[in-house]
Each structure stands twice: as C-alpha cells, then as structure tokens.
C-alpha cells in the first residue's frame, strides 16, 4: 500500500515538474549548469570505466574462445555487441545512478531540510519545476552523448587489451567490429539511455524533495534513491529489451 502511495506521489510530482518555466533566461542558465554538474563532471568516470571494462570483455571473450573452428574476428564482434547492447547503456546508467542519483538526492534533500525549498515556494516559484526540469532535460540531452562515448571507448579498450596481450590480431578485431553492423542496435541502446536518464534524475529528485528530518535522513534518502533507481533501471531494461528486440 505504501509503495502505491509513493508511486502516486511520484507521478503527482512529475505533473508539477512539467510546467512552463517561469523565466526562460533563468531556465537556460540552470540547464547549462546541470549539463555541467550531471554530465560533464561524469565524463572522467565514464571514460575510465568504459575503457577498462571494454578491455575485460574482450579478454574474457578471447579466453573463452579456444576452439580453432571459431574465427578470431568473433572476439571483436562479440565485444562490440556486448558493449553496444548492454554494457554501455545499462551498466553505465547504473554507475550514473550511483554518482548522479546520490548527488541529486543529497543536494535537494539538504535544500529541503535547510528550508531553501520553502524559500523558493514563498517567493512564488514552482520549486519542482525550477529544480527538477533542468536536471531531466540536461540528462536527456547529454546522457546519449555520454553513452555513445562509452561505446566507443569500450570497443577501443577491448582492442588495446587484446592486442597488448597478444590474444588476437589487430586486423581480426577491426574486421569483427565492422562485421554485421546494424544501426538499429544503436537506436535501441539510445532509446534505453533516454528512458534511464529520465529515471536517474526523477527518482532521486523525488527522494530528495520529499525528505523529512535532518542530515541523517538525507543520507538515508540518498541510499534509498540509488537502490530504487538501480532496481527500476534493471526492470525497465528487461521490459524494454522484450519490447524492442523481443
């Protein structure tokens, strides 16, 4: 029953979020600030993880293909498919849920407990629209770019890991990643990313906005937000895969 109450409250929150911004010049400023906070500041971790996990995927694929009847270019092919379909959009979104989700909940939660949100309301500002809409739009705009970069770096990471360790030849890997390229898979991955970007910003915003109490509750809300965002991403990943590829 309690879950239903939260789900209802979440959708009521969204109704307040999707209103016309009170001043476009202020909204534009906030949008670019959020692009920096939620997107550009996540570039480093996304690049680092993508490169090394791409390497691990390529090494593990190579290690598991020991039959002489399986061509080596399949390592590149499997790495590319794994990274584009699953690793970049889903795994990176869960990383972002941890990093960005906790940031959103703790910053909004702190604003709530220090009455900064009340201050916005008293001034006649729709605080949900002011605080959450720029975050959603910044994530919807920037995360697809981040995931495309993650795909690229993951594949590059696989290349370097295999070539340096002599697990496969450079030509085989490059042939493998070019083999049977289907742009629809990129579309599928980006569709998932857009949905996950929405989840990564709105669920933590919900937990932060409605927090009650003090700093301890803000900490608890951050943990809850990350857990619920990850759960929703995993569930939506399953349903979206069924709907789009199934």
């Amino acid at each position, binding site marked *: 029953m309690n879950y239903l109450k939260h789900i209802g409250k979440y959708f009521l929150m969204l109704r307040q979020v999707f209103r016309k911004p*009170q*001043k476009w*010049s*202020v909204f534009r400023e906030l949008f670019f600030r959020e692009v920096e906070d939620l997107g550009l500041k996540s570039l480093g971790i996304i690049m680092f993880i993508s490169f090394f996990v791409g390497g691990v995927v390529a090494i593990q694929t190579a290690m598991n293909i020991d039959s002489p009847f399986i061509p080596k270019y399949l390592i590149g092919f499997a790495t590319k498919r794994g990274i584009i379909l699953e690793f970049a959009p889903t795994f990176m979104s869960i990383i972002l849920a941890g990093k960005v989700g906790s940031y959103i909940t703790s910053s909004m939660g*702190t*604003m709530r407990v*220090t*009455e*900064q949100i*009340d*201050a916005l*309301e*008293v*001034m*006649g*500002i729709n605080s949900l629209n002011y605080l959450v809409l720029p975050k959603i739009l910044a994530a919807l705009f920037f995360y697809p770019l981040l995931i495309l970069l993650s795909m690229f770096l993951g594949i590059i990471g696989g290349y370097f890991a295999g070539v340096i360790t002599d697990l496969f030849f450079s030509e085989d890997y490059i042939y493998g990643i070019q083999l049977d390229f289907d742009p629809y898979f990129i579309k599928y991955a980006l569709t998932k990313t857009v949905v996950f970007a929405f989840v990564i910003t709105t669920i933590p915003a919900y937990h932060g906005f409605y927090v009650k109490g003090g700093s301890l509750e803000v900490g608890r809300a951050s943990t809850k937000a990350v857990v619920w965002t990850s759960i929703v991403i995993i569930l939506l990943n399953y349903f979206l895969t069924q709907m789009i590829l199934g």
Partner: protein
Amino acid sequence: MIEIENLYKEFDGVPVLKGISTTFEKGKTNMIIGQSGSGKTVLLKCLLGLHTPEKGIISFDGRIHTELGIKERRQLRQEIGMVFQGGALFDSLTIEENILFPLKMFANKPKSEMLDRVNIVLNRVNLENVNKKYPAELSGGMQKRVAIARAIVMNPKYLFCDEPNSGLDPRTATVIDNLIQEITKEYQIITIINSHDMNSVMEIGEKIVFLQNGVNAWEGSNEEIFKTENEAVVDFVYSSNLFKKVRETYLSKTK
C-alpha cells in the same frame, strides 16, 4: 492589513490550530509567541501559503488567500518577504546572486539596475564587501542580515520572520531586532515575527499574539504584557527569575 478568521489546521486528524482569529496592522512589528508545539510555525506557514488550512479565512488587504487563483497567489507571494530561521540562503550562490535571485525571476529590469538595488539593500542591512562571498563564509548574524536583504529586495508589503534571533548572541540579536523594526517603519510594511526570544518581545513587540495549544490565548502590546494577569502568559513570559524581577520593578514603578 492581514486578517485571520477562525483558522483551523490539523495533521493526520490531530488539530494544531483551533480557530485562531486576529489581525496584523501595517507599519507594526507583530509577534507570535508561545511554547513549542503551540502552533506558531504552523500559523506562519498557513499565512505563507505553505500549509492549506482546513477551515477559516486569511485575508491580505482584502484578498482572501484561499479564494485566489494560482496566478494571483503567485502575485501575492511576490509581495511577501520571508526571513527563515536558518536564513535559507542558497548555498551554491554568492551573496549577490542570492539577493539578485527574486529580481532575476520576477523583475524585468536591466542587470545594472538590479545590481544597484542589491547594493542598496546590502547597505540598508549594513553589509559591505560581501557581494562575491558565499553564505558559508559569513557569520550567523551576517547571514541573517543577508536573509533580510533578500526578503526586502522586492519591496514587499508583508515581511515574515521565523525566529530571526535563534542562534545569535544577545548583541547581534538586538541589532537584528532593531533592523527589522526600522525596516517595518521605513517601508510601512506588515511585519510578523515568530519568536521565542523574550528580549525581542519586550523590545519590538508592538502587537503580541500568544498561542497556547492552538488557540489565541492572549493578545496585546509589549506594554500590556507587563500588566497582564493572564496566567498562561505570565507563566510563559516570566518563567525566568530575571524577567520576573523586571516585571516586578516595572509594576512597582507604574503603581
């Protein structure tokens, strides 16, 4: 004038305000006092529109709050300045940006004009060279003064203050009290202060509303509070020996 008529507010079936009626006049520092849990903050939040009362009327110069549409309510809120207990300054913005914030949202003026206004209100609260600092770099008293500056930057008709002296030393508290009173007179606004601080009550309370268990148990001025025989008020206001002696001295002199 702000008029409150028969205001009821409850939370989860528990009544917090039980039919409060009172008025707050222009150019006066009005104070709401009472024990913790008496309903002061809830009353203030009802006045600010942060809580919706179950019953009753709140009227701002004839505009009944509950009957206003979203647009008119937003307009009314722009006429309200609020000083929160902890200041509620936006941590991520500089002092200048904090004060500029309501102007940027609602005033269609050139930036230079808005910055001039920021400097005028900063001067009014006796703050200098803090424009580029962040709230965390200022003392509690300075933060309160910035909060007052932000509250008056839009030339409000109504100023609300929630425990403006909490956490301040007595000297700074007096400075803040005097500042609020001066601003009230100068701008001819309606000021409502929610306070626990009996020094403030005695110093600047031109109208005092005493709440007890969600009802308006007494009201009067800071002069009348010395003479009152109301037991609840006497118990609350003169709970310390110092204030008891002050009252006795006052009464013996006026007899």
